[in-house]
């Protein structure tokens, strides 16, 4: 689906969004215990019950939990019995939202519940994420997520597009604006810190934390019934680049640019953007790929440098963008999610509120 709407296609909107506080550890909660409050929050906001939901889609990863089919336990939180129409992506919830959007487009359902969650605290996230790499040429070397992001940051520095102080400024700004986001994990002044993997310092890296998010989508008039100002999805698209880092230009994000183009992001300016940039250098790459200038309010939530719960952080970007439209703080917002090392996969959604 592109920005050019198919005639007769249904209008679909984000009508509710909720997220947990993101915390370094949540030992006292199982995944479903962590998830339940946000599920009930989005249901309460719309007045819907679990049985009213037409389609449910979730995003999570067994590798975070260290258990096979771990998402089936979380299904308890949505009342999976009697059987519901349900699906799961082993990815960030932003991709679950994409699947739910296509399901609503088919007309098979009018409402969808999308949720995602991740507890990174039980394992060592830097090591866990090595398991998503090419298993023949890369994963046997165990290059961790920070190391790969550091290669990208150095490439950006070598290309003259950033220096260490520019990187530090990205992290500092994110945590400064995050003081207004009670869900964020790192807020206010945070020391730039020592090198994690040079040129990245701890201040250039996202905090490791546990968290969950949920969104409700609805089609057409149903969306107006459930929300006073729905965030209409005008376009949504996702693209992927070669998995081999040595094939890619790490200073650019052509997949983000293409997804944005197909989602209609360049047809008219956006006023707000929520970018999923876990590492400081990645925000610089994304701003360039998305042609965002200083007139656009970027990551007022603090973004992933303030809170990056794996599998939920991308859905939270889309949810934050939608919530600003719900509250009347934005008329046209861009939400972006990423997955994989060095911005390998990127999803872009363009959301709009009704004219006021």
């Amino acid at each position, binding site marked *: 689906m592109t920005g050019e709407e198919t005639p007769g296609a249904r209008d679909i909107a984000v009508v509710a969004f909720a997220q947990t506080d993101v915390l370094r550890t949540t030992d006292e909660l199982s995944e479903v215990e962590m998830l339940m409050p946000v599920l009930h929050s989005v249901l309460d906001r719309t007045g819907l019950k679990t049985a009213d939901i037409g389609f449910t889609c979730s995003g999570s990863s067994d590798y975070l939990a260290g258990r096979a089919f771990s998402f089936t336990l979380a299904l308890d939180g949505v009342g999976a019995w009697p059987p519901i129409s349900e699906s799961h992506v082993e990815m960030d919830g932003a991709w679950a939202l994409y699947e739910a959007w296509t399901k609503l487009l088919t007309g098979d359902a009018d409402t969808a519940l999308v949720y995602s969650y991740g507890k990174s605290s039980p394992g060592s996230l830097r090591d866990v994420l090595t398991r998503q790499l090419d*298993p023949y040429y890369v994963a046997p070397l165990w290059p961790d997520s920070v190391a790969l992001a550091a290669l990208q940051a150095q490439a950006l520095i070598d290309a003259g597009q950033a220096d260490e102080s520019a990187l530090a400024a990205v992290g500092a700004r994110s945590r400064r604006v995050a003081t207004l986001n009670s869900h964020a994990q790192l807020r206010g002044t945070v020391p730039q810190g020592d090198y994690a993997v040079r040129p990245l310092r701890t201040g250039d890296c996202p905090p490791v934390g546990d968290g969950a998010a949920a969104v409700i989508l609805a089609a057409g008039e149903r969306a107006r019934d459930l929300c006073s100002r729905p965030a209409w999805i005008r376009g949504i698209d996702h693209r992927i680049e070669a998995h081999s880092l040595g094939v890619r230009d790490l200073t650019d994000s052509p997949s983000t640019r293409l997804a944005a183009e197909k989602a209609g992001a360049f047809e008219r300016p956006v006023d707000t953007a929520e970018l999923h940039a876990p590492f400081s250098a990645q925000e610089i790459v994304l701003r360039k790929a998305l042609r965002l200038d200083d007139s656009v309010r970027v990551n007022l939530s603090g973004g992933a440098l303030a809170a990056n719960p794996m599998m939920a952080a991308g859905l939270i970007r889309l949810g934050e963008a939608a919530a600003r439209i719900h509250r009347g703080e934005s008329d046209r917002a861009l939400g972006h999610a990423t997955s994989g090392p060095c911005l390998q996969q990127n999803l872009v959604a363009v959301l709009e509120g009704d004219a006021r």
Partner: protein
Amino acid sequence: MPEVLKAPLVVEFPFTRSLGPVQSAFLTGLRERIVLGVKTTDGRTLVPPVEYDPVTADDLRDLVEVAATGTVTTWAWNHAPRRGQPLDTPFAWVLVRLDGADTALLHALDVPGPDAVRTGTRVRIRWAEERTGAITDIACFEPHDGDPAEPTGSTGEFADPVTGIVAPARLDYSYSPGRAQSAYIEELSTRRTVGERCPSCHKVYVPPRGACPTCGVPTAEQVEVGPRGTVTTFCIVNIKAKNLDIEVPYVYAHIALDGAGLALHGRIGGIPYDQVRMGLRVEPVWTDGARYPDHYRPTGEPDADYDAYKELL
């Protein structure tokens, strides 16, 4: 609230992977100290080689040898190597474009410090002493002052090609089951089975997971169930499990503990396997020091009526 439980959890698995023709040639080449790339239809040489063009998705099979020397295209200084990484002393992660290649390979560079590496540094492969046909046959890169290395003239054909790799993976976790399951396990240590009642449908879930799977609402009210129960359904196991000291055949059953709204599963003992039946009344048998019942045995009571457990099948 009792203390939440926590225990180490190690997930370890030797992934056995087969190789396609291009990967096989590349990894066999490494075993023979030869580096192969693959030519794309537009004439570029990809190293490491892939079987499909990342842009056009064309089939790629045209192998070409490149040099064991090259140039760093970007780098990152790793002052604290982690388990499994190529070197256990501080090193630079590097992307290296080998002489003759158009793309770069990820590996480690052995230099004393970050001042000894920059983008543009010339490097050469340091081969592992023992090579098996894996990316780790390249031990690492090291600085190189001289001319580009001469290719050996390999055609990419090998007498004894590597057709697969075994990639061991180990991840360490500190697992916590959360509030509801911690409480369940704590009670089990006193040989009591405690579920949680749904405030909406009033069913008692065992083991409790903190949510009612029917209603999707949190559960909190603890209810002791059992110890006796009824076999709702069962199967006869004829294959001996590894590391399990139980004679086959034996019966594995769903058991609805008295008062529970859901059956849990356990082994049935103390009765010949071919006499186990639906409705059989059973009780747990504990062994010293165990944290859960070893198995369930008949109580000697009359069988339960089908109507008493049909909702729990």
